[in-house]
């Protein structure tokens, strides 16, 4: 291995690591607020990337069916609660948020899809379709179990992953898609040649780290969100609406996922089931960062990316084995270090 290859591998590792970092940050955000380990975060990425690719081809992405059906299901659940509590006044708001909004977006996308508008308009359409999925998903899958243990919520995440991957196959098909690059520019950095697109991914994760770090460490909203994670009952007692914080964190996660998908779509071929391994590796990154700090989670993800890129050079067939076997002792070390008496609630 010469110096050039070494540098290329570093560059590759950092680019991939930045993708995982985008996932890790969203995972951490959701975990910090809701204690949900949101493995399906990767699915937001595939949904947005594949939707964008389909829009470019002038086809209507199936994401809008997911949006409308999901919205209807969430509306039904909300309405059921409202009717039981005889809170009639909530009904118009439910209808507006969960039925009208998704339907309006769906109609808009269906109208716009065959017209092949400018790329930037397509990006906005994708955001409009994918971002509302976050709160809808939270409402349907997680809100009824908000007080369950981390492990139960983890199983819920697995179930959600199953459903979303299944839907993804139905709506996007089994072949991979790639979207047109936004910028063709390339920069020379010594021996390396870096595409503007991958710089974008790295910059996006950096910006995100800063925003989240600022939001959570220094703003009152961030503190409220964190308080919710630590003690739901306590948070409710001091007037923090826990349900709303859940919705908010999923909205942010979906936004991060959608933006990441749009950034990644031109760099690599994405498939209906790519999201799962993405999500897992982001999770690994977040855990290596101690599952508590945004900058550390990003560093952990970069470490995963580097590990991958070097192992794919040395022994490509065993890449996943190397990555996933090496994290086992790291997990053991981290778990022992963060030793605290943890007992499930009965």
């Amino acid at each position, binding site marked *: *291995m*010469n110096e050039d*290859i070494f540098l*290329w*591998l570093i*560059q*590759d590792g950092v*680019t*991939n690591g930045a*993708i995982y970092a985008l996932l890790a940050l969203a995972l951490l955000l959701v975990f910090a607020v809701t204690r949900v380990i949101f493995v399906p975060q990767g699915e937001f990425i595939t949904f947005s990337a594949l939707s964008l690719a389909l829009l470019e*081809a002038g086809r209507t992405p199936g994401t809008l069916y997911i949006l409308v059906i999901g919205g209807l299901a969430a509306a039904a659940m909300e309405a059921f609660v409202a009717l039981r509590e005889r809170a009639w006044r909530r009904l118009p708001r439910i209808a507006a948020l969960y039925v009208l909004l998704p339907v309006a977006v769906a109609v808009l996308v269906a109208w716009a899809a065959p017209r092949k508008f400018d790329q930037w308009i397509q990006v906005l359409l994708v955001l409009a379709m994918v971002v509302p999925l976050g709160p809808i998903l939270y409402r349907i899958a997680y809100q009824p179990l908000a007080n369950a243990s981390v492990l139960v919520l983890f199983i819920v995440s697995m179930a959600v992953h199953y459903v979303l991957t*299944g839907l993804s*196959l139905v709506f996007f*098909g*089994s*072949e*991979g*898609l*790639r979207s047109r690059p936004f910028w063709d520019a390339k920069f020379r950095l010594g021996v390396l040649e870096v595409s503007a697109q991958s710089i974008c991914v790295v910059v996006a994760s950096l910006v995100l780290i800063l925003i989240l770090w600022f939001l959570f460490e220094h703003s009152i909203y961030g503190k409220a969100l964190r308080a919710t994670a630590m003690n739901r009952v306590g948070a409710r007692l001091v007037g923090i609406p826990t349900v709303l914080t859940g919705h908010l964190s999923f909205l942010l996660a979906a936004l991060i996922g959608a933006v990441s998908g749009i950034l*990644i779509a031109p*760099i*690599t*071929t994405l*498939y*209906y*089931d*790519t999201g799962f*391994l993405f999500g897992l590796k982001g999770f690994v990154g977040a855990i290596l960062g101690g599952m508590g700090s945004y900058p550390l989670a990003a560093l952990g993800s970069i470490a995963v990316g580097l590990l*991958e*890129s*070097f*192992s*794919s*050079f*040395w022994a*490509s*067939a065993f*890449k*996943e084995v190397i990555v996933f076997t090496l994290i086992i002792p790291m997990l053991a070390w981290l778990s022992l270090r963060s030793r605290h008496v943890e007992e499930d609630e009965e």
Partner: protein
Amino acid sequence: MNRRLTIAFALLAAGALGALGARADVTVGVTLGATGPGASLGVHYKNAFQLMPKTLGGQPVKYIILEDGSDATNAGKNARKLISEDKVDVVMGSNGVPSSLQIAQVATETQTPFLCLTPIAVKPDQYKWTFSVPQPTELMMSAVAEHMKAHGVKTVGFIGFSDGWGDLMYTATESLAASHGYKVVTNERYARADTSVTGQVLKIIAANPDAVVVGGSGTGGALPHLALVEHGYKGQIYHNHGTVNAEFIKVGGKSVEGAIAPTGPLIVPEELPASNATRAVALDFTKRYEAAFGAGSRNAFAGYTHDAVMLLDAAIPAATKKAKPGTPEFRAALRDALENVKNVVGTHGVYNLTPANHNGLDERARVLVRVESGTWRLMK
């Protein structure tokens, strides 16, 4: 709990027994994975069944298609179900070597003819009931090997899927090396869903081979090709018949111009000479397939489904003379008949089966195609 379970089982059992009504149709059982890791192949196999005739060899025919999620255990379970519950006369399937081997095992055990849609190298004396419809991988890749020989390629870099398909392509490339005067210098692997193959590609470039063979399938073949071009690799890049579809070019864009791959004639029937034996059949099938599934949807896999059904069409008349469909005797007769079909023209080639050769295709079943201005074109 147990009483309810008993009732549930009893009901299911009753339903199962009720399904065994008397029939005289020929029943074709199919198990395919239109989902899971092999989905991009399985979908095409499955689509083609919508275009298949409702009578074969003069007999009304029923197709029962089950989904196996590209998983061998499920494929085997499906095969058992088709044979014991639906009393099928013949089994077809599946995408993926493990799934196909598993079905072959069941076919032998239950004495049911099995038309395998994946190229598996099984010996007829060991798997008496299994017939492999696609061109053997060696036959396909020998076209690539010959092309490389003609252009003086001495060293070959290989990069393929880290799955059964990748193994199949590597084995074929490797086994043809000695006879065609080249050496395989790398065996790199990647997963379809990987975001980057930079590490593997750097290793190939460091080895500096004269040509590279990519053992991926569908759009998955594009990733290494793009990375190779991006890192300035100048040698010829070869693919395989699994990659020959329109999506590959869509994803690969300009970078995959000049990619060469072997395939069956049905990808380019328009360009075949009028004298070509398979031209008419292939032209008709691609026209119907693209009418149903969109322009540019043609692919090798749908053709295998078509050809398997054509083989049945040729064999059924001989078998119905001996026994009635739905009986073990019919299955045995069908197997014997399949072993002796001659000059069946399919979309991929002309099939001449013998007891010693359960595939029966020859060099006519492969052509080389190249990506030229955004489409696969026949290489003259």
